[in-house]
């Protein structure tokens, strides 16, 4: 076995150790913390590079390179619970991406968090997150994956609520945690079910794993409720986890609020890596998802499995709706957040329609340019003294040129500007696959509309932020101050926005370079990436017209945005948006995110209220009624006695109430509130039980 496979665990272990050391080290040890975190990440990157080369060496013969290392974890009852890690192209690619982007963002955060007094805590959490994420990536056992998955969720919670003293952050953290829990419940159920069905949680175990052929054959044969194959049901449950984690409809609500966290966190966790974990999960269990009876039978042109169809639809809808919402947002980070949601939708769609390679390709490219965009926005926010509202920005082009250039590259990549930017190629792959999808064409249309909107809102954002004239006076400089600890020294800044230090700009430049170059790994004419992930799909035939089409769409979006927002710049901060003038109602709808949150509030609260009312009803009428009944009977009895008193002589009356009193006494004897009497009763009950066991059997 390749040594790197054996020592793959080092990659997540390094950040974990770093996190531990940072956690016990004192607050003021900033240098130590930063160097530990970045060092571990860098080392992890080197290791994952080796892993990548190891996989690169020999793939092609007998499918693709895959080596696993499994070991017994703990034994309960008769059977062992096994954990393990796997090294295959999927893992290698993710490892490279996570460690590389991660280390860049770590470096960036040195500059961004420089003034924060909880610097070390921040890096501790970051490293912990990295450990969890890498654990998810290398896991060969759904259990290990789930553990790391939850670790990732926890760190995400910690980091969103990093500035816990501001209520919005705390609320957002809670929201993110709870919303993702809903998904994780599904994942847990799926895991348990999978274990019950296949008897193992290892993905690949030399033929015995739950993703390998015979297990799949066994599972797909039997059907769960409503006649769907068990694999499909499990797949859907697992997909629920993915939905929660990577913010698909209808669980996307937490992701935009997650932007309350420090911006590097948003870049690392809520744009590049963690939210992609959902996509990765689906890619990891893809065999489980795609398997159907006739795919096993061998005819490839059967309908895709239900699970994949669901994935596709959810992805497509998410891609479109999130894009529409993004059009109407004003917070620079929220726009990016919604675009993240929509891009994740694209990835899911890509997985659904085109398989692992296409989805993963978009995941990788997106990771780079979205990290770039977030860091850019971070540097913008940093430059504008913690403003996030794009209406108060503008004209930053001349203040921060480097940021502007890199940001523009990222924006073009995201918008899918033809030929030179990675986003174009990956998105085009997805659209192409969607076009060829056998079930329906709607995902394709939704995707195109999404692409148009993407180009549009990104142009709007760039236009509002970087062009025109600077609109943020000090009138609003304390607008978010107090919100984070940096606001203490905003006064130290000049009121003019300023370019960020090199430690922040250099990562931007590197990422920008990647955002451009990565695309050429996956062009239809040279599909190195897809080939590497072991998917040799059809030739470039029929791609060109599509490409031209999408190019046109992109240009339309760009042009529209430019015409609406750059040509006639808004003068002041608080004049209404152009679209708002045209159709205020729709705009309001979009700005309020289709009232998703409100809807949830309503439904959830309504549910609870109803339940409470139900309990109240039971309490008031059923139990209460019983009591009333008893009391009524008592009253009736007393009436009876009164009657007897009236008609019978006092003797009978005395006898009657004496009887009642004795009865009452007798009953209250049972309630002496003495432990020992209860114990006696228990003893008697024991006797009865024994007698029953002795004789009841014979009878």
């Amino acid at each position, binding site marked *: 076995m390749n040594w790197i496979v054996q020592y793959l665990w080092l990659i997540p272990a390094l950040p974990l150790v770093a996190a531990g050391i940072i956690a016990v080290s004192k607050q003021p040890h900033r240098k130590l913390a930063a160097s530990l975190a970045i060092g571990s990440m860098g080392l992890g990157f080197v290791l994952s590079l080796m892993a990548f080369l190891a996989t690169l060496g020999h793939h092609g013969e007998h499918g693709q390179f895959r080596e696993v290392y499994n070991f017994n974890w*703990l034994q309960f009852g008769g059977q062992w619970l096994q954990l393990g890690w796997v090294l295959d192209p999927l893992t290698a690619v993710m490892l490279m991406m996570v460690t590389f982007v991660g280390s860049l963002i770590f470096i960036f955060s040195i500059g961004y968090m420089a003034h924060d007094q909880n610097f070390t805590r921040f890096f501790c959490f970051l490293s912990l997150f990295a450990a969890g994420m890498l654990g998810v990536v290398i896991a060969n056992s759904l259990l290990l994956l789930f553990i790391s998955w939850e670790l990732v969720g926890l760190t995400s919670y910690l980091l969103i609520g990093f500035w816990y003293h501001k209520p919005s952050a705390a609320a957002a953290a809670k929201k993110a945690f709870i919303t993702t829990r809903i998904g994780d419940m599904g994942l847990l159920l799926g895991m348990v079910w999978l274990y019950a069905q296949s008897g193992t949680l290892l993905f690949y175990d030399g033929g015995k794993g739950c993703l390998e052929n015979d297990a799949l054959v066994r599972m797909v044969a039997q059907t769960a409720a409503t006649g769907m194959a068990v694999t499909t049901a499990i797949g859907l449950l697992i997909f629920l986890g993915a939905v929660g984690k990577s913010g698909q409809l209808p669980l996307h609500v937490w992701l935009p609020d997650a932007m309350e966290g420090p911006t590097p966190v948003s870049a690392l966790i809520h744009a590049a890596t963690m939210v992609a974990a959902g996509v990765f999960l689906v890619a990891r269990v893809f065999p489980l998802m795609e398997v159907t009876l006739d795919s096993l039978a061998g005819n490839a042109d059967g309908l895709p499995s239900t699970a994949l169809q669901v994935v596709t639809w959810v992805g497509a809808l998410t891609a479109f709706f999130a894009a529409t919402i993004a059009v109407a947002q004003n917070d620079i980070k929220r726009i990016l957040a919604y675009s993240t949601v929509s891009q994740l939708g694209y990835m899911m769609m890509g997985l659904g329609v085109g398989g692992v390679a296409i989805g993963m390709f978009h995941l990788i490219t997106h990771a780079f340019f979205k990290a770039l965009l977030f860091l850019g926005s971070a540097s913008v926010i940093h430059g504008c003294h913690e403003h996030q509202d794009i209406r108060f920005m503008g004209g930053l082009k001349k203040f921060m040129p480097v940021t502007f250039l890199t940001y523009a590259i990222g924006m073009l990549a995201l918008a899918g500007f033809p030929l030179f930017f990675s986003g174009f190629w990956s998105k085009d792959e997805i659209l192409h696959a969607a076009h060829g999808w056998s079930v329906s064409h709607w995902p394709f249309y939704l995707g195109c509309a999404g692409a148009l909107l993407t180009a549009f809102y990104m142009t709007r954002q760039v236009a509002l932020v970087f062009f025109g004239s600077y609109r943020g006076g000090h009138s609003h400089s304390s607008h978010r101050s107090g919100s984070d600890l940096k606001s203490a020294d905003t006064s130290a800044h000049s009121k003019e926005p300023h370019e960020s230090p090199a430690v922040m700009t250099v990562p931007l430049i590197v990422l920008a370079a990647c955002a451009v170059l990565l695309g050429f790994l996956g062009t239809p004419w040279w599909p190195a990436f897809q080939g590497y992930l072991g998917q040799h799909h059809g030739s470039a035939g029929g791609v060109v017209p599509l490409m031209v089409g999408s190019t046109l769409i992109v240009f339309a979006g760009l042009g529209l945005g430019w015409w609406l927002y750059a040509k006639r710049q808004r003068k002041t901060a608080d004049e209404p948006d152009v679209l708002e003038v045209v159709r205020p109602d729709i705009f309001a709808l979009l700005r309020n995110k289709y009232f998703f949150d409100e809807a949830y509030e309503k439904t959830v609260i309504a549910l609870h209220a109803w339940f409470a009312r139900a309990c109240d009803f039971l309490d008031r009428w059923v139990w209460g009624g019983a009591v009333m009944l008893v009391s009524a009977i008592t009253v009736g009895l007393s009436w009876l006695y009164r009657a007897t008193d009236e008609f019978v002589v006092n003797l009978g009356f005395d006898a009657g109430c004496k009887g009642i009193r004795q009865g009452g006494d007798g009953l209250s004897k049972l309630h002496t509130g003495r432990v020992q009497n209860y114990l*006696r009763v228990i003893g008697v009950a024991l006797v009865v039980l024994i007698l029953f066991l002795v004789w009841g059997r014979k009878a």
Partner: protein
Amino acid sequence: MSPVFLILALVTLLSAVAAISFRNLVHCSLSLVVTFAGLAGLYLQLHAQFVGFAQVLVYIGAVAILIVFAILLTRSADTPNHAVLAPGWLVGIAVAVVVFGALGLAILKSEAISKKVPAAPEATVKQIGDALMNQYVLPLEVIGLLLTAAMIGAVIIAMRDDKEAK
């Protein structure tokens, strides 16, 4: 019915009776110690060496001491001059006797008990350790957790909080 068994049984039972019938709590606890010792001896008779020693270590070394401490801390170390029996103790005795009757009946009537005595099983410490570390590792962890929780809980319950202490 080896004589050793009879002696141990006698000691155990007598001390147990003493443990619940002395007026003075300390005497009760001390005779409880004797009961524990007798039980440990019975375990040894049953070839359960490890459990026997563990019994002594835990019950005599820890539980009895705990009880003694509780007695002293609740100032009930002196012989009470009021009634020590709960009201209605006769009923209690009756219930106990009935329970014993039922149990004895069940024991004597059951055919499940095999007449033949199997060879003395051997449970070396090594076997027990292996079992604990492999087959029963999960219960072991749970027990550890439980003990920790119980310790913390006991501390918190018995801790005199300042409002109360004044």
